Structures are given as structure tokens and as C-alpha cells.
């Protein structure tokens, strides 16, 4: 008997029966197949030797498609970047899809296609996964959970707690691109912008940085909470203060314009393809030079310095020469009323 072909995901796609099998084969395997995944065993089995990095994350972005990417690309890049931020070479990812009943099959196929492209760009394989379909209203279109493993090269020790006074703060490019691109397409807030999300895997950039200097102290990608929150985390973890200069922080004109209009601060807007590195001062210029040759680091700049006083505090020198504290974000940034 022929199975009914649905153009929408229905609950039966998550039942573990024939439709589920068909979904896995036609949507997931077709795009993501590799010898480990194609076995369809309960676990992927692979060899490794050395220091393993392991991470997990969940993706619930709204809308699921945005300028410059979608939730699938985001899930792969986000997990790859989490591994890259400790200097690991990302190898294998798991992807778990929680799909809301009624999601168009076409959307899912498109998202899996993005997963495939992002994985290829990052040089990782999706080796295991899962699909659940939940009742309409129980999820917002599609949630993706990921896990990733990678290997940390010999001699590399990158941690949020390793920053030292005197370290230079390097930012890989403009801030706020992802957050504003997503916000511009959110229901109720649509505004016109050519801005694209910066969503990208950063492991290539990190590998090149490590080649120049394996002694990078700390690294982090300023995703939710933006640059301000990331710097606060690093300052707290390393028990140092970080001083940045407003004039040196690269911000695209479109991002600044949107932030002005909405009463938001680019320092707190999310990024998905940027990193902050805290590096020994003698290595800074060489790392910066190398970063600028990579597509993901073309706009790299030294934006500040790590200091010993007031541990945990992030201070910004404003363009007028005054200084102010830059605190962590509390809750989501909300547009002003007046």
C-alpha cells in the first residue's frame, strides 16, 4: 500500500512507524548521510585519541528563517563554535528535531539542506539524531537540540578563566548583525534592512589563530546577551577587569540605525559568527593580522585590554572620554516606550 504523502509534518511522522522511517530516509539521510549515520544504529561508534571537548545546546529561534540563515544553520554553527571556543577541532554532531505538527515538509527539507551546507563548511559530520513530532501548540514550529564532540590539540589550553592582566581583547568583526537581522523579521516588528545574520562556523578562523599562537588565553562567541554579557562572563571567570573603548568597537551602520530607532544597545545584541579572544599582548598583532585574512575575521580589531583592578568589572571609555560600567544583560532587550 502506498503511504499518503503529506506536505506537512503530521503527528505520525514522529510515531516511529513507516512515516517516521520515510522522513528519516528522505529528509535526513538524503541530505546528511555518512557511514556513521547511515548505519542508523542507536549510537554512533567512532575512535578517538586525545583530549575530547563535548558540548550541547538547544535552538529555539523565532522566526526559523531569517536573512543570512535559518535554525538549521544556526544549530550547526552554534555547536561548532562552542567547540571551537575552547580550541577544539569539531568532529561529530548530533541533531535532535522537535517538530510542531503542521510544519510544512518543504520548510523542514530546506532547514536540513542548511544543516548539510553548514556541516560541510565546518567540516563536521552529523552522526546521530532524533525526531519527535509534538501536538500543534506544544512547540513553536521547530526546536533543534544538538551535541558536539571535538578534539583539543596538544598544547592548547583556552578557558574563560585564563585571562591575564595585560591581555589584549580582540573582537573578530562587527557586532549585533545576527540579533538585528532576526529582530527585523520578527512578527510585529518588521522593518526593512539588507542586513544579514553573521551566522557562520568559526572553527576555521580559530585553527588559524592557534597556528599563530597556541597560547590564546580565553575565547568566547558573544551570542545571546551580546558582547557586553560575554566580556562580563570572562571578567568574572578570570577575576580580572576588562576595559574597552567605544570608538574601537566595529558596528555596522544598519545595526546602529536599528538600535537607535528601537532604543537598544548594540553591545547587548546577539551575534552568531563572531568571537572575542583575550591574548597575550606580544601575540596580539600577529593574531590580528592572521584573523583579518579570514572571511570570518575580516573586521577584526583590538578593542581593549585586561586589567587587574576591580575584578569582574567591565568598563567602557566612551567616545567623549568619560567612562562607564558595562553590565550584563538582564532579560531580553526590549524596545523603549517613549
Amino acid at each position, binding site marked *: 500500500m502506498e503511504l499518503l504523502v503529506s506536505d506537512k509534518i503530521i503527528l505520525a511522522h514522529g510515531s516511529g512507524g513507516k512515516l517516521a522511517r520515510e522522513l528519516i530516509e528522505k529528509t535526513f539521510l538524503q541530505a546528511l548521510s555518512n557511514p556513521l549515520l547511515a548505519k542508523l544504529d542507536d549510537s554512533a561508534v567512532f575512535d578517538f585519541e586525545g583530549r575530547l571537548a563535548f558540548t550541547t545546546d538547544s535552538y529555539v529561534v523565532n522566526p526559523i528563517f531569517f536573512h543570512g540563515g535559518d535554525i538549521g544553520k544556526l544549530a550547526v554553527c552554534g555547536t561548532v563554535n562552542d567547540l571551537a571556543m575552547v580550541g577544539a577541532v569539531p568532529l561529530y554532531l548530533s541533531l535532535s528535531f522537535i517538530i510542531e505538527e503542521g510544519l510544512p515538509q518543504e520548510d523542514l527539507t530546506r532547514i536540513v539542506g542548511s544543516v548539510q551546507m553548514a556541516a560541510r563548511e565546518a567540516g563536521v559530520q552529523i552522526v546521530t539524531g532524533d525526531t519527535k513530532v509534538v501536538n500543534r501548540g506544544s512547540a513553536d514550529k521547530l526546536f533543534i537540540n544538538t551535541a558536539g564532540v571535538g578534539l583539543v590539540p596538544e598544547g592548547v589550553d583556552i578557558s574563560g578563566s585564563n585571562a591575564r592582566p595585560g591581555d589584549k581583547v580582540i573582537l573578530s568583526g562587527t557586532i549585533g548583525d545576527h540579533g538585528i537581522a532576526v529582530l527585523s523579521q520578527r512578527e*510585529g*516588528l518588521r522593518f526593512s534592512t539588507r542586513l544579514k545574520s553573521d551566522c557562520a562556523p568559526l572553527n576555521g578562523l580559530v585553527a588559524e589563530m592557534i597556528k599563530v599562537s597556541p597560547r590564546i588565553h580565553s575565547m568566547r562567541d558573544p551570542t545571546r546577551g551580546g558582547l557586553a554579557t560575554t566580556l562580563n562572563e570572562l571578567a568574572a571567570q578570570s577575576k580580572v577587569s576588562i576595559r574597552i573603548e567605544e570608538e574601537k568597537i566595529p558596528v555596522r*551602520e544598519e545595526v*546602529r*540605525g536599528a538600535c*537607535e530607532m528601537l*532604543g537598544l*544597545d548594540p553591545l547587548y545584541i546577539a551575534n552568531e559568527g563572531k568571537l572575542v579572544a583575550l591574548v597575550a599582548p606580544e601575540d596580539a598583532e600577529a593574531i590580528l593580522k592572521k584573523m583579518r585574512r579570514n572571511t570570518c575575521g575580516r573586521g577584526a580589531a583590538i578593542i581593549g585590554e585586561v586589567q587587574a583592578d*576591580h575584578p569582574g*568589572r567591565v*568598563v567602557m571609555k*566612551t*567616545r*567623549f*572620554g*568619560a*567612562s*562607564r*560600567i558595562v*553590565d550584563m544583560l*538582564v*532579560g531580553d532587550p*526590549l*524596545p*523603549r*516606550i*517613549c
Partner: protein
Amino acid sequence: MKFVDEFRRSELARGLIRSIQQHSTKRVRLMEFCGGHTVAIMKHGIRQLLPATIEMLSGPGCPVCVTDNADIDKAIALARIPGVILATFGDMIRVPGSRSSLQEVKADGSDVRIVYSTLDALQIARENPSRSVIFLGIGFETTAPTVAASVIQAEQEGMRNYYVISLHKLCPPVIKELLDSGEVKVSGLICPGHVSAIVGSRSWEFIARDYGIPCVVSGFEPLDILQCVYMLVLQIEQAESKVEIAYRRGVRPEGNQRALELMYQVFEPCSARWRGMGLVPDSGLRLSKAYQRFDAELAFEFDPGPAFEPKGCICGEVLRAVKTPRDCKLFGTVCTPASPVGPCMVSSEGSCAAYYIYGAAGE
């Protein structure tokens, strides 16, 4: 960026600061009424750049902060009514009322939605014809006309499920109240930019005339504010008191007549309760008789219970400019943006949040 970069040029700022330093001989207290100005002043570190002769005070111009606890309780009680969708602008959702916040009742299952404009609230009402959509109308003269427009639109479409809680506030009456109280001595007033765009700079003439206080309407960029401070200093030094505009690209003496017409077509002035200041005559807006069917407070039965202020919170005094956020024992310890006790720590335009988030290093 056009119309922003021009107002952030550091060499011009330095020039203005030098001019202020050269001309400022008397000790003065300048009050910025508007929360947007407070944030800009803190964010750009303007206080640090001004000479010691100038003291800056923050006034009651944050629409979220001035909303009385009893009114927040009212909104919460309305949101709890089954079948109601309460639509509100962002910050309001986190402000604690007497017992809970809209954020908490949302987590309990009430349908509270953040909207970015009244058009969104109307759209929710169109998409949910079997439910009642109540828009929480807070804000000053800047916001009230857009809410009025939504009511007129709902009327034209014959919508029967759109309502408004009108907690709008009018600025000139409350400034008068503040000056009459004699609690705060102010040498000059930085008049609100966005509000003035609607009401016009002429609305502040009574302050210059009756109280002898110089007034300058300011925009929200650092150069706007420095220019405004410079103009106030010149007036004070020359013993003048008049109303000037340092925000000519946004404000005209007569304001925006079309917006005012819309506002007074739908609303009429009434007494309103301000946090920290109590009942202020003619400082609020209620739906006028012709539009009363849109008034949520008349359309629904609800009991918000008795209102009370959180213990130790001095938001009221901060709003009256009698105290500064740092005078509050709870500031930065018990009360932080992560766990706010009072609204001034919640709102993105609140004084306490501005002091906390943008506090000058070393202060």
C-alpha cells in the same frame, strides 16, 4: 549615520564642554524631566564631563516608573480574567505590582503579550474575535495619540473586542505639581524632547514665566544635551528665564496639532495617580464619553485588591528628585535589574536602572 553621528562628534562635544566651563560661574541644579535623557546622560558619561558647578537631577519622566502600584494591580487583575488577552509594551511586563507582576501572571497561564505598537494589539483583536484584547495604555503625550488612533480604527472597523486601560500621563501638570511642592529647588529644566514634539515648546512657558526657571527642550544625543546645558547655563548666568529649543529638528513651538487633535478626540483630562506623588489634577487621560465602550475598567468586573508599596523602596522619592538612586538602601544590593524591587530599576528609562547599568566607573 545621518542625524546621529552629527550629534556625537567628540570634537564638537569638547568645544561645548569648554564653553560650559567658561560660562558657568554660579552653582546650578539642572533637572532632566525625561527618563530618556537620564539614560543618555548616564550612557555617554555626560555628568563626568560637566564642571563641578553643575548638579544634574533626574525627574519623574519615565512612563513605566510613574505608574502607580494600584494601576499595575488593576492591569494584573484584568489580565487574569478568562478569555482576556492583555497586550502591553515591553518593560511594563516586569514591573512588580503589590503582589505579582504581569510576567508572573503570564507564567501562571494568563495571556499577556508584548507588542511593539498599538497596530499589533489591533491585529491580535482581529485574529481573536471570540476573545477580549485589552491594550495597557501607558506613556506620555508621545504615546497617547497612537493609542487614540487605535481606538478610532477599532471604532471604524466596528470591533467589539478591543479595549484600553488608559494609564496615560500628561507632563506639564506634573511638572507644575513638582515645582509647587517646593521640595526641590531647580535652577533650570531640560524639557523632554519627544513629549515636546507633540505638545510644543510653548507648553513650558508657564515654568519660565511663573517660576522664573529657564527651560530648554533637548534631543537625546550627547550634543543635544550638552547644547541644552550650555543654553541653560547662559540663561542662568544672564538671569533670564525663557523657553528655548535645542532640538529644532524635532520640536516646534506649537507642537503636533494633528496628534493633539487625535488625542483629545478620544481622551479627556482627568486626575491621575503618580507613583510617589499621589493624585495630580488633570495629569491623566481617560476615554471621553463617545469612546467609553473601549474602556476596559468599565467593561469588565475585577478586583485588584488593596495596593501597597514594597518596603524600603524609595522610587517615589527618586521620581520626585528628592533623593537619588544611590540614596536607596536597596540599590544594587537587594534591588538590581535582575531582581527589581521598584519600577525605577525595571524600566529601560528608569533612573535606578540607568545608574546601575551605566554607573560611572569608580563611582
